[in-house]
């Protein structure tokens, strides 16, 4: 592995990446987990992230971009602090997923894959998030909010907003 002298990641993440590159039979297998962890830390997969991960895995930056562009959950632009992901797959759709999505669009004033001007919220329409039993469901960052109605969703969004104003 190419030695990384000046990592852009926190020491903990960098150490985690050092290990990740060693635990697969083929080094490039660590690519997707690395991209996900990097996105969690940086907020999105920046060009600098691509460069460092390519170095760590002895890949070309083009290889990293090929994989990166394949997955819709990896993003190359910063998202809002709270990324609201509304499921519209079948269970959620039947129980009002699209109403929730439209409600979010109106309420936040943004469309799919957009971010509010204050950078607080971004909105995404996503495929199944595995919460069909409690549809319709919305995922904000890594938190689940289920059996929602537009009113309940308002409350959810308000708690995040309130968290910010403190």
């Amino acid at each position: 592995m190419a030695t990384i002298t000046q990592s852009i990641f926190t020491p903990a993440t960098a150490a985690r990446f050092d290990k990740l590159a060693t635990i697969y039979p083929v080094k490039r297998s660590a690519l997707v987990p690395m991209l996900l962890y990097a996105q969690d830390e940086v907020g999105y997969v920046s060009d600098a992230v691509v460069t460092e991960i390519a170095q760590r895995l002895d890949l070309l930056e083009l290889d990293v971009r090929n994989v990166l562009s394949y997955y819709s959950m990896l993003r190359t632009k910063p998202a809002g602090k709270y990324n609201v992901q509304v499921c519209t797959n079948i269970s959620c759709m039947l129980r009002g997923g699209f109403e929730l999505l439209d409600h979010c669009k109106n309420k936040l004033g943004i469309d799919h894959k957009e971010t509010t001007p204050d950078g607080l919220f971004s909105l995404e329409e996503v495929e199944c998030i595995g919460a069909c039993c409690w549809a319709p469901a919305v995922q904000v960052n890594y938190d689940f909010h289920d059996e929602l109605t537009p009113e309940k969703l308002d409350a959810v969004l308000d708690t995040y907003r309130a968290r910010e104003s403190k």
Partner: protein
Amino acid sequence: MADVTFTVDGKKITAPAGTLLLEACKAHGIEIPAFCYYPGLSLQAACRMCVVRIEKVPKLQTACTTPVAEGMVVITESPEIAQARKATLQLLLGNHPLDCPVCDAGGECELQDMTFKYGAAESFYAEPKNHREEQKWSPVVYFDRPRCILCYRCVRMCGEGMDIFALGVQNRGSSSVIAPNVPPQLSGVSSHGEDLAQLDCEQCGMCIDACPVGALTSGTYRYKTRPWEMNHTATVCTHCGDGCKTTLGVRPVADGAEIVRGDNRDKSGINGDFLCNKGRYAFDFANHAERLTQPLVRKSGKLTPVSWEEALSYAGTRLRDLRQDRGPESIGIIGSNRTTNEENYLLQKFARTVIGTNNIDHHRTADFVTLANALAGTGTTYGKSRFASQRSVQTAQAILLVGGDPTNQAPLTAWNIRTNVRLNKARLYIANHEAIKLRRQAKAFAPVASFGYGAFVQSLGEGNDFAKAVRAEEDLVVLVGNELHGGELASLIAALPQARFALLSDYVNSRGAADMGVLPDVLPGYQPLSGAALAAEYNSPATAGLDLLAMFDAASTGKLSALYVVGSNPIRRYGIDPATLASTFVIVQDLFLTETAAVADVVLPAANLYEKAGTVTNSYGDLQLVSKAADKSGVRPDFELIVRLAGHMGHDLHSLVPFSRGLRADMGQTRGASSGEADRHAVFLTANKLEPKLSPFDPFAILDEIQRLIPGYDKLLRLQMLSGNDQHITPASSGLTQIAGTRKDLVLPSSDTLFTSGSLTRYSPMLEDVQRHQSSRSAGASAGQMTSAD
């Protein structure tokens, strides 16, 4: 592997086990269509066009990934298969723009052919097409996204074939798209406020060549003409010493015929499908605005356009007078690396018989004299000549590369090495003073200090692992860069008695110039200046003449009365002070007013290699036919100019070029003073069933003489040559000039890269464009805020 027998469309076919069904069928004349399959590249099975019905297998199978098996029963055409292929085509055409009337590939498009064959004119898909503007990735590579059928041929060609990996596939499903390696946000290039993706690579255009449709198009050819409106001529590329075969697409223009496209259309010859950046695009120098199209004569200190008659008769008369007044030894001649064998032979014959001097040399880029001498008399290795051919690089089990950087200097050699390593698991050993790119294919890499090749050759006799491995190789081809010449080269050859050798030279006919004796100390075929039959026939001086540098030394002391330079630019190449030639009468034949031409007294505009016929010999000694493709009014082939100059000197042309038997025919009946003297040329022609040539300007008249007089070239098969096949020429095995201890090594590498080609570079706008493009890439595009005009 053992053969297996199976049935295809009711026909019994036998093929080696392990052969792919598609290839086995192809070998037996059964065509199975395929977009993604490309011979020599990894299997993709992405396009589903090659589906066939195999008995006892429930679903249609892809013939491109199915190995043949004993007793297999295959059906390749049936209504079921046609329907499957038609459905595939409908999907492919779903977002295809169908802009065939303006597409570069129109008429040569595999998608068009298949649509025609399977008739997918009606489609179930009525969705609006998803249009995208075409993208300019580099000066030579353009991408038209909607035309792309995602066969991944370009991706694999770039990665596996070229070892560059500059192309990838991004996004997913119907949004998938071929992407170059510099993403828009990092390219620093934008147009109308939009960042543009760029391609940072060797710009070889192999992706364009492999593209079955018109998705990747060439910067020099796009939207210029239709394939069927060009005339196609198979000839040899004029750039490096590899001698790739190329098919030039030519169309008529006001002042002749211009080349609009270069590609190896029929994938034949030593290069198969390969061509590099220079072969594919760098023919535009022919139409450069500064191209000379009128003879110039210096009048009151200024080069003035004159008629051909005036220029030639002035040059011929002056040359004749200077020869009479100051002697033949006062005249020097410099030949070219880019002219044909016939022209090179004619030029040295001109020097030795018309002028009567051995003062002839050229810009040497490899020491072929030492190669010929060191291998002379050493016979063969495992039944093969010890001179390696380009084809042996494709098949040898082991290759040792000493010095040189084929990736940049001899791209076909690099391609053949990579292909041999990839497909045949050949073992590549590299000894180099730089970490060249080919080390990625190497089994072992021995770093050598700069100018340390002598020590490396010594170390080959020692017990280190590298030396042991190399010495143990039985089928070994050694490729030698131009760092090694003279004694070092001779001892390398002596150190590996089992190997075959080739030198990497820099220009298309570097080897030819040496073989043809454009050298002061050897006659054609590296024969000695005295003693050989050739020397007797020439009746030329027996002492070695001045070499290129000695000529300029003589000029500086006023001893050189005249200098005749054909297709060479020594003043720039050797950094010579133009004032040296102040008292010398200089005649220059060239395409452009080079630094050397600028100081000449007579300048004759010459045709380039694409505008003449003849033969050339590549670095390896593979001889190939050069055919006239383009035409330019106002220029003449060097061959004609040399003959005319001899004529204007009052020389009997029949003794220079053996043409037109006429009344001079002497079939050996002559009696009297020349009793027993047969007209050897006429006897040779009769014996070889060749016709006498009727014109003194016919290069084939000289080819006849070359074949008659030069050992090695006597084995030439005309039918092979005229069919466009390459033939490997090996110099004589004995009786060559012995190298004197004081012989100077005059090898001067051209130091050309992928994007330069000697003096032609600055006259090729495309090469300069590509250089700018690549330098802005490597300079870190973030700094450059380059905005393209379009």
